[in-house]
C-alpha cells in the first residue's frame, strides 16, 4: 500500500508500484512509422542548414530527414551514427530546443520546429532494432590507446579509434560503463536500460575492452598508462560536487542532486527509493530540473527549485523549466540559501531574496522559510582527481586543438576538458575529434 504524499520525512513507497511505473515511462514516446514520415516531411531541406551548424556533432540532419521520407530509416540512422555514435542517447537527452530545433527555420517561421530529436530517435532505434552494427574496423594499426572513463566522450573516442584500426582499453572506475548516460540523466529520458544497450551495441565494432573498477590515481596512474599505451585519452568527467555555502548543510536530508539521480537510475525497485515530502532543490541547471521532476514523480508533495538569479540566467532551458512546472514543481528565482534548520535532520530551509545589479548578486536581507525535509544540491560539479602535471584552464583540463593537453601523448575531452558546454553531444564531438587527432598523430 502506498504511503502517500503527505507522510513527513524522507520515506520510500509514497506511490504505488503502478503509479511509479507509469511516472517513469518515456517522456516522449517513440514515433510510429507514419508519424515519423509526416514529421520528417516537414523538413525543408535547407541549404547549408542552420540545424547542422547548431549541432555540436554536425549531423547531416536534412539528409537523414530525406532518408526517413524515402522510407529508409536505417540509412537515416547510419547518417546520424557516422557523426555521433551515441546518436541514440543524444536523441533522448539533447536540449534540442537550444540546439538543432532552435535553429530550425520552421521554429522561426511558425514556432514549431521539425521534431529533429524524436526523428533522430526513430532513425537510430531502427538501426539498433536490427541488432547489427553498421560500422567496420580498418586494418589493425598495431597501436593501443587507453581511454580513461567510459562516459560519452570516452565511448565516442574509443569507437572512432577502434574503427580506425587501433586497439582500445577503456578504464572505468564505476561498475558499469556509460558515465552520466548511466548514472546521471533523467530516468524518464532514458528508459528500458537504454544506456547499457547502447554501450553493448557500440562495442560490437570490436577492438574495445572495458575494465571496470579501474580508478585513476588508485589502481592506475597516468604515468603507467603513458608507458604502456601509445596514447591516452582522459574523459574523467566532473566527479566532485560544488560545496554549498550555507548553514546547516551537514544535517540529514541534505545531499548532492547527482547522487540522488544516480540512485534513481540504479535502483531495481522505485518503491524502495526514499524521497522527502517537501523537497527543495538548490540550483538552476538541468540537474536541478531532473532532480526536482524525479522527486515529484516519486511522490513528493511539494518540490521547489530555488535559484539565486533570474529565470533567464538559469542553465535549464525554458523547455526544461516548463517541463518542471508541468510536473508541479515550483520554481523560485532570486533566492539563495542561508541555512538549513532542523533538529539533526532538515526540517526547513531559510532562503534570502537576492537582487543582481550590474551583475553583482547581493542579498536583500529579506528571508523566507520553506518546509524542507530533503534538500538537494544541484549547484554544479567540479573536476576531481585530475592527474598531476596537467595544465588547467580554470577548473578544467586545458586543451588545444582537438583535445591535446599540455602533456604529449595525452588528450582530454568531455566535461573534464575546458571549452564547450557540458552536454552529452559536446562530449561525443570532443571524443570523436580527439580520436581523429590521436589517429593522425599515431599514423604520422
Amino acid at each position, binding site marked *: 500500500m502506498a504511503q502517500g504524499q503527505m507522510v513527513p520525512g524522507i520515506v520510500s513507497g509514497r506511490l504505488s508500484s503502478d503509479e511509479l511505473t507509469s511516472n517513469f515511462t518515456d517522456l516522449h514516446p517513440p514515433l510510429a512509422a*507514419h508519424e515519423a*514520415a*509526416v514529421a520528417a*516531411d516537414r523538413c*525543408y*531541406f*535547407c*541549404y*547549408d*542548414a*542552420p540545424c547542422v551548424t547548431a549541432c555540436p556533432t554536425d549531423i547531416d540532419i536534412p539528409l537523414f530527414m530525406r532518408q526517413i521520407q524515402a522510407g529508409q530509416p536505417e540509412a537515416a540512422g547510419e547518417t546520424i551514427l557516422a557523426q555521433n555514435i551515441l546518436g541514440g542517447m543524444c536523441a533522448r537527452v539533447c536540449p534540442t530546443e537550444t540546439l538543432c530545433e532552435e535553429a530550425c*527555420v*520552421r521554429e*522561426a*517561421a511558425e514556432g514549431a520546429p521539425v521534431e529533429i530529436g524524436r526523428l533522430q530517435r526513430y532513425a537510430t532505434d531502427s538501426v539498433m532494432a536490427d541488432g547489427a552494427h553498421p560500422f567496420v574496423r580498418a586494418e589493425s594499426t598495431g597501436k593501443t590507446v587507453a581511454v580513461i572513463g567510459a562516459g560519452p566522450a570516452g565511448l565516442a573516442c574509443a569507437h572512432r579509434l577502434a574503427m580506425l584500426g587501433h586497439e582500445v582499453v577503456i578504464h572505468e572506475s564505476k561498475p558499469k560503463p556509460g558515465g552520466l548516460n548511466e548514472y546521471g540523466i533523467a530516468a524518464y529520458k532514458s528508459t528500458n536500460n537504454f544506456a547499457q544497450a547502447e554501450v553493448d551495441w557500440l562495442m560490437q565494432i570490436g577492438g574495445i575492452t572495458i575494465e571496470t573498477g579501474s580508478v585513476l590515481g588508485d589502481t592506475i596512474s597516468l604515468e603507467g598508462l603513458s608507458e604502456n599505451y601509445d596514447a591516452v585519452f582522459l574523459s574523467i568527467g566532473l566527479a566532485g560536487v560544488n560545496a554549498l555555502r550555507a548553514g546547516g548543510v551537514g544535517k540529514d536530508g541534505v545531499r548532492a542532486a547527482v547522487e540522488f539521480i544516480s540512485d534513481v537510475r540504479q535502483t531495481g525497485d522505485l518503491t524502495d527509493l526514499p524521497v522527502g515530502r517537501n523537497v527543495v532543490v538548490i540550483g538552476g541547471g538541468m540537474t536541478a530540473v531532473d532532480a526536482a521532476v524525479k522527486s515529484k514523480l516519486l511522490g513528493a508533495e511539494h518540490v521547489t527549485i530555488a535559484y539565486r538569479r533570474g529565470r533567464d540566467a538559469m542553465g535549464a532551458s525554458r523547455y526544461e523549466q516548463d517541463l518542471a512546472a508541468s510536473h508541479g514543481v515550483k520554481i523560485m528565482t532570486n533566492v539563495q540559501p542561508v541555512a538549513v534548520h532542523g533538529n539533526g535532520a532538515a526540517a526547513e530551509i531559510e532562503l534570502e531574496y537576492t537582487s543582481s545589479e550590474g551583475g553583482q548578486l547581493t542579498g536583500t536581507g529579506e528571508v523566507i522559510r520553506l518546509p524542507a525535509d530533503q534538500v538537494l544540491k544541484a549547484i554544479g560539479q567540479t573536476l576531481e582527481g585530475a592527474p598531476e602535471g596537467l595544465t588547467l584552464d580554470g577548473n578544467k583540463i586545458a586543451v588545444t586543438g582537438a583535445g591535446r593537453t599540455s602533456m604529449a601523448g595525452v588528450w582530454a575531452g568531455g566535461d573534464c576538458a575546458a571549452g564547450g558546454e557540458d552536454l552529452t553531444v559536446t562530449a561525443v564531438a570532443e571524443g570523436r575529434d580527439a580520436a581523429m587527432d590521436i589517429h593522425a598523430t599515431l599514423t604520422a
Partner: protein
Amino acid sequence: MADLQTNFLGIESPNPYWLASAPPTDKEYNVRRAFEAGWGGVVWKTLGAEGPPVVNVNGPRYGAIYGADRRLLGLNNIELITDRPLEVNLEEMARVKADYPDRALIASIMVPCEEEAWRAILPRVAETGADGIELNFGCPHGMSERGMGSAVGQVPEYIEMVTRWCKKHYDRPVIVKLTPNITDIRKPAEAAKNGGADAVSLINTINSITSVNLDTFSPEPSIDGKGSHGGYCGPAVKPIALSMVSEIARAQATHGLPISGIGGVTTWRDAAEFMALGCGTVQVCTAAMTYGFKIIDELTAGLSKWMDEKGYKDVSEIVGLAVPNVTDWQYLNLNYVAKAKIDQDQCIKCGRCYAACEDTSHQAISMSDDRVFEVMDDECVACNLCVDVCPVDGCISMVPMNAGEIDPRTGREVQPDYANWTSHPNNPMAKAAE
C-alpha cells in the same frame, strides 16, 4: 449568395457539380446518396450493350500516388464499365430521375462501333428520362483492347461517325467524352463537333502505372504478380486537363462548343478555374472517392462565396473568362520584364531559393554569412523558380519593371509597347514591322 443554378445544353442542375461516370455513380444506392448530399448531377457509370455484363478483376482495381501525410494526389484504376445487367441500370436510372427531377442525370454509354449497337441501346436510355447521354470514348484500359473507349477516341473519324449515329437515334443532348491519350486534343473535339455533338467532356483518365513493387517487380495495382496500365486521375492530372480544355475552348474550329470539365477537381477553386477556361459544368470523381460525397458542401459554398466577392450573380458569367488570355508562346510580350523580390521580413532563411537558383538556374541570388538571401537584379531572368520552391507563401514575388527603367541584366531600357517573338530580330521568320 450567388445562384449556382446551371443550365448546360438545356439541362438544368442546382449547381455545376456533376459526379463523373465512375464507381460513385454505378448504382441507385450511391446516386441517391449523392443527390441527398447535394450534388447537381451525375453521369451514370458507363452502360454496355445488352447481354452478359463485363467482368472485373477480383483483385486491386486502384493504385495511388501520395503527397505528404498520405494525401492522395493521384489515383489510377483498371475497373471496366458497369458490370451489372443493362436492364437493372436502366430501371434504377428511371426511378432516380423520377424522384430527383431537378438534378441532371446523364447516361454514359459504350457499345461497339456498329450503328446497330447504338440504335439498339439509345431508345432504351431515352425511356429512362435521362437528360442526355455521354459517349465514353475515353477509358484507356480493358475496353480499349476490345475496340471501344479510347480506341475510338483516338480516331477522329470514328468519333464523328458514332456521334452522328447518336444524334440520329437520340433526341436529347449528346456529350462526347474525350481521351487525353492522344497528341492533339483539338482533333477529336473537332470530330465530335462535326458529328453533331452538343458538347464535349474531358479529360478521361491517362494511361499510367502508379508504381512498381520492388520486391515482386510487378506494376501496381498488381493482379497475381502482373499489372496493366490503368487510367490516371485526381489532383495530379488537373494541369493536363486545364490545358486540354483551354485548347478546345480557344481553337477556331471548336470555340464556343460547350465543355464539361473533368480532371482533378478537388475544391471550389479547381472548379472555378475549369469554368474560367470555358467549362459549363465540372465533373468530379477522385475527390468524392477520397473524401465521400460531403465535399459538395465546400464545393458549392466556396464557389458561391467567391462569386459573391467578385460580384458574379450567375455561373454562366464566369464561363470562359480566362479563355482570351490563353495564347501561344510566340505572342507573349517579350517587353515585359520582372524581377524576383524577397521580402526579408517574411524570409525564414531556409535557403531553398538560393540552392535552386545557384544549382539549377541563373545564379541570381546571393547568400551572406548570416543567411540573408538577396536577388541580384543583374542576373535575375524572373524565371519564378525561387517563388515556386519558397516554402513561405508570398515571401518572394515577381515585380514587373516600369517602362523607362533600365534592366540591369541586359542594360536595356524597359519598353512600354508590346512586342513578341514574331517580330523579334532573333527570329529568322520575323516579319518586319509594317
